[in-house]
C-alpha cells in the first residue's frame, strides 16, 4: 500500500513545486568528506555570509563527525587547559636556606653551663630570621608536554562541544566592505555572537579590512588555523571559522587521527633545536 502511494505523492509534490512562490531551497554544498564515516552521520552547519550586517544563509555544509561530533571528553579538555596554562608558567618564589642566609657561622652561646638550649647557629630554621627548610627555589619551570593524542582529542572534543552548543559559525571568508570597527561590532551584536569572538582563517595573512577593524577591539581576535587551541576556543564565546579554515582543520586533524607511523609523535618530547 505504502510502496505504491509514496512515489505517487513524490511526483505530485514535484509537480506542485513549480507553482510555489516560496523561495528556492537552500543549496547544499557538496563536500566530499575524506575518510567517510562508517556509522555517524555527517554533522551539518550553515554557511553564512560576512559582507553584510544581516545574516544570509548561503548553504549547508557537511562536517566530518570524527572532528565535529566527537565524544565530548571534558576531562581531556581540562587536561589541555591545565597544560596550556602550566607549560609556560615559571614560578619565581624563592627562599634562602640556613646556609644562604647571611651570618650564623658562630656558635651563639656555649654548649653547656648556661641552662639554655643547645644551638650551633642563629640562622638555624628554629630561629627567627633563620633559613627555610625545603622552601621554593627560583626559577621553577612547570613545563611538561601533554601526549600527542590528548592534544588532538582535546581539539576535536572542544570543536564538537562548540558546535553542539551552537557557538561555532562558518563563514565564506573574512572579507568585509569597510575597516570601521562599528560595522563588525554591529554585525556581531545583530547575530548574537556573544561579546567575545574568535575568527579563524587558514593562513595568517588576513584581509586588510578585518585586521584594521578588529585591531582596537580586544574581544575580537583573529587567529590562523595553526594557532587554534583549546584555551582560546573556550575563552571566546563564539568561534567563527572560514570555509577554507574548516577544510584545512579537517585535513590536519584527520591526517593525525589516521597517521600510519605514530612513533615519532608519541615518543618523549624533544626540543626542536640543536
Amino acid at each position, binding site marked *: 500500500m505504502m510502496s505504491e502511494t509514496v512515489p505517487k505523492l513524490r511526483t505530485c509534490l514535484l509537480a506542485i513545486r513549480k507553482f510555489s512562490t516560496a523561495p528556492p531551497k537552500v543549496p547544499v554544498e557538496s563536500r566530499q568528506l575524506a575518510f567517510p564515516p*562508517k*556509522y555517524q552521520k555527517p554533522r551539518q552547519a550553515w554557511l553564512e555570509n560576512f559582507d553584510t550586517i544581516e545574516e544570509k544563509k548561503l548553504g549547508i555544509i557537511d562536517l566530518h563527525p570524527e572532528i565535529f561530533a566527537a565524544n565530548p*571528553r571534558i576531562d581531556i579538555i581540562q587536561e589541555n587547559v591545565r597544560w596550556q596554562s602550566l607549560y609556560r608558567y615559571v614560578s619565581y618564589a624563592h627562599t634562602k636556606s640556613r646556609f644562604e642566609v647571611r651570618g650564623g657561622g658562630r656558635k651563639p652561646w656555649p654548649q653547656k653551663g648556661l641552662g639554655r638550649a643547645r644551638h650551633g647557629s642563629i640562622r638555624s630554621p628554629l630561629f627567627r630570621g633563620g633559613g627555610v627548610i625545603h622552601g621554593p627555589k627560583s626559577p621553577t619551570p612547570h613545563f611538561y608536554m601533554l601526549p600527542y593524542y590528548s592534544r588532538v582529542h582535546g581539539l576535536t572534543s572542544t570543536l564538537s562541544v562548540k558546535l553542539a552548543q551552537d557557538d561555532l559559525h562558518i563563514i*565564506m571568508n573574512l572579507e568585509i566592505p569597510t575597516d570601521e570597527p562599528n560595522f563588525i561590532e554591529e554585525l556581531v551584536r545583530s547575530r548574537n555572537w556573544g561579546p567575545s569572538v574568535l575568527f579563524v582563517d587558514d593562513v*595568517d*595573512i588576513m584581509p586588510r579590512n578585518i585586521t584594521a577593524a578588529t585591531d582596537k577591539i580586544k574581544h575580537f581576535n583573529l587567529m590562523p588555523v*595553526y594557532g587554534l587551541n583549546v584555551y582560546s576556543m573556550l575563552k571566546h564565546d563564539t568561534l567563527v571559522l572560514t*570555509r*577554507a579554515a574548516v577544510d584545512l582543520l579537517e585535513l590536519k586533524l584527520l591526517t593525525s587521527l589516521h*597517521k600510519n607511523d605514530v612513533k615519532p609523535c608519541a615518543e618523549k618530547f624533544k626540543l626542536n633545536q640543536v
Partner: protein
Amino acid sequence: MTTMRPLLFTIFTKTKPFQCLRKTSLHQIRNSSYESSKFLVDVEVSTKYEATKIPEEWKYVERILPPTLVPEPQPLPEYQSGWKPQGDHKDSPYFVERSRNHMMPVYLDVRQRGVKRHTIIKKIQGDIWLFEKDLRTFLEDLIKPKPLRLQVNEFARKICINGDHVNAIKYWLGEKNF
C-alpha cells in the same frame, strides 16, 4: 605519500573553490621550527645527482616511500590471516569502531603484576547500554556459574570486564560483523 595522500589532497582541493579567490601577494612563513631556519654557510653537496621532473620516474620513488596514512583495506574474497573487514552498520543501534589500523578495539589490561586481568572494549558508539545487554547474555553463558563483573563507562564509551575474555569477545564481535 602513496595512494592515500594524493587522494586526500585531491578531495580537499576539490572542496576548496573559495581559496583560489584569495589574492595574496604575501606568503605565509612560519619560523617556529629549527628546520625552517637558513643555513649559516652554503652547504655544498659533493655527491653528483640528476634532478628529474618526469612523473613516470617519480612513480617509482613514490613506491619506495612509506605511506603516511593507514590505507583502506582492499576488498578480497578471502583473507589469509583470518582478519576480516568490518561490515556495514549504518542502521545498527550500536557500533564498535575499528582502531586506526583496522583492528578490533578489545584490549587486555594486566594490573598488579598479573594478579588482575581486565578486558576493555573501547570506541563503542550509539546505544552502549543495549550493547552491554547483548554482551552480557553472551558472556554469562560463557563463564557460568561464576558471576559476571562488568562495568560500563558511558562517558568515555568503554566497557571493562573482569577476567581475560579478549578472544571470546573478538570472536563474538566478528560473528556480528563488527
